[in-house]
């Protein structure tokens, strides 16, 4: 059965990208547009577009093992819902997605065998993508796939991977399952790997769901430049998580002008004013949602754009932790031009002309005094009466 699967794969998945493009009716221009978008999202200079295109076209297809643990599968579904299915599907073909429970046609032992075969064939070369949190409590018995806890699976799989991507907030830091008392001890991938003492570079792509474009950009960055993108202190690519939503938001001028929606549906809300008062967590959430929006539905297709405050889905300590209506901490200061300092230069000081005029007047008086005193020395005096 496994053999048959392999044959099917090799038969139906073309190795030549150009052929695939033609077959799917994607012209070169559209393809380059996609590559430009990916390049831009990755924060790479435009000169790199050709390189990114070359990487996409290259016959070399890194294998990907995609594991699911405590998750809702939203991240995978979002990837599949990207509106350019032809090109997105294409990218899925440029990586060799050797194992994905969602997409795999097979099930059961055959599916598992496909995974182990791929791992065996690509030791040290495959990318491990993890979706979903890992329950740390009670050895991880709350999530068993193929009879194994996530920890058991990871112990077997992770040491052979080249790098790992934790897609979604769950895999990055625990996500929604870690909310409240966190009954299963839901934990992110990196922390689990550290606990298991497995040394593997992890890129976190939090979000609920994670943006498919961030994933695509990360993968293509790696393919093009053969290295991981620059990461912040939480292992998140800076190109996607380097700015606060607040600093990128199209409603920021309303925040700066003090125009807030006070209640859902009120006049200000209808005007599209800032949602800070309704609990928007944009000021303390690092993500690029306002720029890349979500799933190509159209402009304004992200929470704030539709009129709902951001709840900080990607940010540990904010999303699923703070109440949605709770006001966010504003982590960045409004630019200094907009707010004056405590001490500012005010009033009109001395000009050259004024000083000259004042000096002349004083000088004239002093001079006149000197001249006069010399004159009076020799003048006749009145006698005084007794």
């Amino acid at each position: 059965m496994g053999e048959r699967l392999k044959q099917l794969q090799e038969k139906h998945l073309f190795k030549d990208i150009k052929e695939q493009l033609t077959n799917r009716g994607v012209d070169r221009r559209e393809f380059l547009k996609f590559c430009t978008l990916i390049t831009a999202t990755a924060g790479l200079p435009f000169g790199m577009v050709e390189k990114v295109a070359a990487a996409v076209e290259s016959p070399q297809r890194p294998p990907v093992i995609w594991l699911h643990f405590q998750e809702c599968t939203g991240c995978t579904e979002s990837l599949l819902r990207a509106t350019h299915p032809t090109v997105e599907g294409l990218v899925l073909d440029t990586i060799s997605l050797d194992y994905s429970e969602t997409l795999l046609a097979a099930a059961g032992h055959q599916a598992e065998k496909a995974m182990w075969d791929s791992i065996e064939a690509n030791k040290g070369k495959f990318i491990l993508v993890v979706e979903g949190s890992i329950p740390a409590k009670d050895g991880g018995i709350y999530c068993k796939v193929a009879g194994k806890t996530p920890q058991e699976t990871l112990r077997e799989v992770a040491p052979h991977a080249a790098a790992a991507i934790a897609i979604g907030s769950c895999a990055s830091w625990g996500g929604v399952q870690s909310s409240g008392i966190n009954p299963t001890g839901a934990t992110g991938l990196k922390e689990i790997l550290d606990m298991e003492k497995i040394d593997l570079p992890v890129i976190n792509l939090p979000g609920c769901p994670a943006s498919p474009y961030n994933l695509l950009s990360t993968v293509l960055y790696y393919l093009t430049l053969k290295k991981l993108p620059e990461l912040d202190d939480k292992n998140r690519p800076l190109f996607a998580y380097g700015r606060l939503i607040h600093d990128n938001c199209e409603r920021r001028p309303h925040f700066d002008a003090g125009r807030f929606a006070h209640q859902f549906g009120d006049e200000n809300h209808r005007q599209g004013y800032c949602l800070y008062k309704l609990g928007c967590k944009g000021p303390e959430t690092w993500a690029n949602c306002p720029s890349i929006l979500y799933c190509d539905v159209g402009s304004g297709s992200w929470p704030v754009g539709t009129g709902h405050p951001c709840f900080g889905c990607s940010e540990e300590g904010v999303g699923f932790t703070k109440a949605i209506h709770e006001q966010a901490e504003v982590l960045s200061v409004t630019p200094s031009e907009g707010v004056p300092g405590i001490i500012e230069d005010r009033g009109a000081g001395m000009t050259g002309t004024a000083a000259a005029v004042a000096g002349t007047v004083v000088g004239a008086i002093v001079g006149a005094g000197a001249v006069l005193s010399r004159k009076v020395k020799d003048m006749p005096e009145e006698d005084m009466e007794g």
Partner: protein
Amino acid sequence: MSEFKPIGGKIITKPFIFLGILAIIAIYLIGKRFVFGIGAVTNLSDGYPWGMWIVYDVVTGTAIGCGGYAMAVLIYLFNKGKYHPLIRSAMLTSALGYSMAGLAIFLDVGRYYQLYTPFLPGYANVNSILWEVSICMASYSLILWIEFSPTILEKLKANGLLRIVRKCLFFFIGMGILLPTMHQSSLGSVLIIAGHKVSPLWQTMFLPLLFLISAIVLGFGAVIVESMISAVSFNRKLETPMLAKLSGIVPWLLGLFLVIRFADLLYRGQIGLMFQGFMGFMFITESLLFIIPMVVLLSPARRSQPNTLLIAGLCTVFAGVIYRFNAYLVGFHPAPGWHYFPSVQEIMVTVGIIAIEVLAYLVFVKLFPVLPTPKKKYA
């Protein structure tokens, strides 16, 4: 022969024309102020709402115009009738000085069209020191002209009116001594409410006393200087002997001022500030201007020499001027970041107002019996 006589002579002289030009410039700028607002002509700002016009034209100008006050005290309180010949020119200088100060106030207040309100019972605020200053100054300006009126009435030969005025004059003289005592000291008290905004080198509860003493010495200094300038300008004999005797009291007053000043600074523990920065420099300059004339005038020989007397008189005047500028402007810091220096237009208005005052003085002494009749030497 009358004690006083107009000196006659051409009205339109070269100095007159020069002063006239300055006056016309000022009148143009004053017009600009009324049409466009105070900001169009001055550098005044919210941090420095009082500048050249208030500090020189009103505060300092009236102090310089304390010649009449100083002379009245000497002549009518201390019964030094021998100084009588100086009284009319002193009164004229004072009357003109206060009138010009009144003009400056009219220019400087923003809402001059409501300048009558402090005089109305429903509005008057007796707690405000500035209210007391304004009432006193307004009344005193009137009193000064009444005190000066015999000169005018004599010329107009309005003898009936002249007799009435002379009968009541003692009361006006009394007012003419009381009122300046009140408002010249209050010009110092005005700054007390500014608290920390006035540098500790100048802020003290002794401000009223210091301002009063410096106003009196300024007045004497003005009398000396003005007398000498008149003599030189109108080619008359110097009144040095009289001025020398008169100025005998001045070094004592200067000394009293310095004693109170330094004792107060020591008591408040602020004496160290006199060595610090620009404030310290201005304080030392001011103090020197008090010390120099004090030293000079202590010696009767130097008092009798017209040139040293004039220099000492000028120093005394400058001392009072600098003291007022220091207390109101140089030492005034509303908050860090504020700057002020008068604009050229602002200075030209002040210069023009002084020019108008001098012009008026020239016209008066030429047409009215202000200056003493020159004595003929008997063989």
